[in-house]
């Protein structure tokens, strides 16, 4: 019983802490809403994302029985956006998770073993020099556009920065005296690595993972837009943009809605990342005026 009540209080504490960061809260809400819409709602809608209806092409939104209109093949934009959302969100999630894990591992290893460090960092430098999208595009081009290759490509491209971040954080923590104290107590290297240094990196990792997620969605969209991503007829936000662009004068909604939703999702993710960073930063101690004060042009805080 106590376990439940104590975790209840923990949740309450976290929740009240969250309200101090409106941007973070808003971002999280949007994200959860987006996920729900993409994964849960389709269970109730029967519209197909690939069924073509040539008599009903280019139907504008809210007409002809389709909420968001139809595209050049008469397919429901709404259904395609939702399915594309599933793809994009899953890809983003996968990339963020994989890149985080590999980034942590590489970062920690190179922080602890200087020889490995030199080699790994040189490679990372070289990889960093190649613009991320080009790297992903080239990989996709070589292996053929499959979801798996896409995820791999994006993961490779995203790991480098995460690895560097973890490495610098780990090194900073490593210098701290208490690690040496543990060594004196004969804790094995492995243990030190994972039990002590890792938790300290959590804040940095969490923040950056959000940005990787956002980047992955964007890069996937960009790649699909360029034709190197998810191949048609399966919808992804990116290739809907591609189709939409070609048909831009016939139906703005074909590209418009995916564009809007990608924008909202990535902005939400960025807000979450920013919010997390603010939350973890002990230096944000200046008294903040509230939003009303801002709008009314009040300078400083009231006494």
């Amino acid at each position, binding site marked *: 019983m106590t376990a439940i009540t104590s975790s209840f209080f923990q949740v309450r504490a976290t929740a009240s802490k969250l309200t101090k960061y409106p941007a973070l809260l808003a971002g999280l809400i949007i994200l959860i809403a987006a996920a729900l819409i993409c994964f849960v709602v389709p269970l109730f809608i029967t519209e197909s994302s690939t069924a073509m209806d040539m008599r009903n092409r280019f139907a504008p939104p809210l007409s002809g029985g389709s909420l968001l209109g139809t595209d050049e093949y008469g397919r429901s934009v709404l259904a395609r956006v939702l399915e594309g959302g599933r793809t994009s969100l899953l890809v983003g999630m996968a990339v963020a998770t994989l890149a985080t894990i590999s980034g942590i591992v590489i970062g920690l290893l190179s922080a602890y073993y200087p020889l490995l460090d030199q080699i790994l960092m*040189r490679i990372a430098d070289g990889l960093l020099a190649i*613009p*991320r999208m*080009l790297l992903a595009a080239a990989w996709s081009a070589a292996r053929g556009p499959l979801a798996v290759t896409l995820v791999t490509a994006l993961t490779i491209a995203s790991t480098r920065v995460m690895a560097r971040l973890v490495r610098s954080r780990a090194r900073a923590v490593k210098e701290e005296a208490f690690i040496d104290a543990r060594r004196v107590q004969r804790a094995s290297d492995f243990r030190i690595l994972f039990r002590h240094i890792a938790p300290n990196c959590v804040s940095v990792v969490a923040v950056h993972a959000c940005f990787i997620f956002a980047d992955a969605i964007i890069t996937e969209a960009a790649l699909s837009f360029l034709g190197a991503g998810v191949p048609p007829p399966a919808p992804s936000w990116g290739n809907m943009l591609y189709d*939409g662009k070609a048909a831009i004068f016939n139906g703005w909604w074909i590209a418009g809605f995916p564009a809007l939703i990608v924008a909202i999702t990535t902005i939400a993710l960025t807000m979450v990342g920013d919010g997390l960073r603010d939350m973890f930063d002990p230096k944000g101690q200046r008294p903040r005026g509230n939003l009303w004060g801002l709008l009314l042009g009040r300078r400083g805080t009231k006494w």
Partner: protein
Amino acid sequence: MISYIAKRLLGLIPVLFVVSIVVFLIIHLTPGDPARVMLGDEATEEQVLELQERLSLNEPLWTQYVLWIGRVVQGDLGQSFFLGTGVVDVIGERLGPTVTLAVGALIVALLISIPLGIAAARWPGSLLDAGALGVSLIGMALPSFLLGLMLALVVGVQLGWLPVAGYRPLSAGLWQHVRYLILPTISLGVVQAALLIRITRASMLDTLGMDYVRLARAKGLSERMIAYRHAFRNAVLPVMTVVGATFGSLVTGALVTETVFNIPGVGQLLVSSIARRDYAVIQGTILLTTLSYVLINLITDLLYGLADPRVRLGNSGAR
């Protein structure tokens, strides 16, 4: 200063080495035989063998790399499989529009971000500050091609004010040249400005808290003078570094934006090469792009050295 430059140049070598290896390996990542993939299913055995010979695909990997690097260093990036001409020529033709776009976007970005960043730092917590951070948030979350598409939709399609596709070279008249570039440059520039606004603001906030700013104020200088002459001169240093670092995203943004607005630059070339599996062109483009990115970083580092007297004159320290 000389030693500073020399150190920087030396640091480039391992990076370029790794890059060249990665780029080289791309062609060999394809499952199956590259020659067969390029020629497609219809190809005959002779054609495949002949292509393999031509591309030295039967040699051990090491040898191929050395051969390739040897040619690259001499300026020969190979032949475009589909266009028949040298890769260097092909890219060269397309360079103009891309460079114009990138440079234009950078100028737009700087024009937006620096005054906004400075103003946001001078009046933190104000509506202006919130606005600047808001613009920055949008710019950082939105990819440039998306912004470009949205701008195209609203300004080009709905309002019809500006053209949404195509490119007119300078020879067609200055206004025409610019007209077709307005939307793409803005969409690319705004996204670049996003991060720069934040960095400028943060850097200015740091600088404005410094003791020498306090002294400048105690001297009776106006806030404006303090912000631009004392604070900004110091604050600009990290901003410069970030400009160099984000050049990579500027370039990739340019490449994608070209596709949105049908601008015949290197981006479109890359896209079609990817579709056609024209590996030589893909390799060449990536190599050149990376090289330019690395060079830009070097140049910004050098400019940083020029701007900061502590670096320029060497750390001779106190006398």
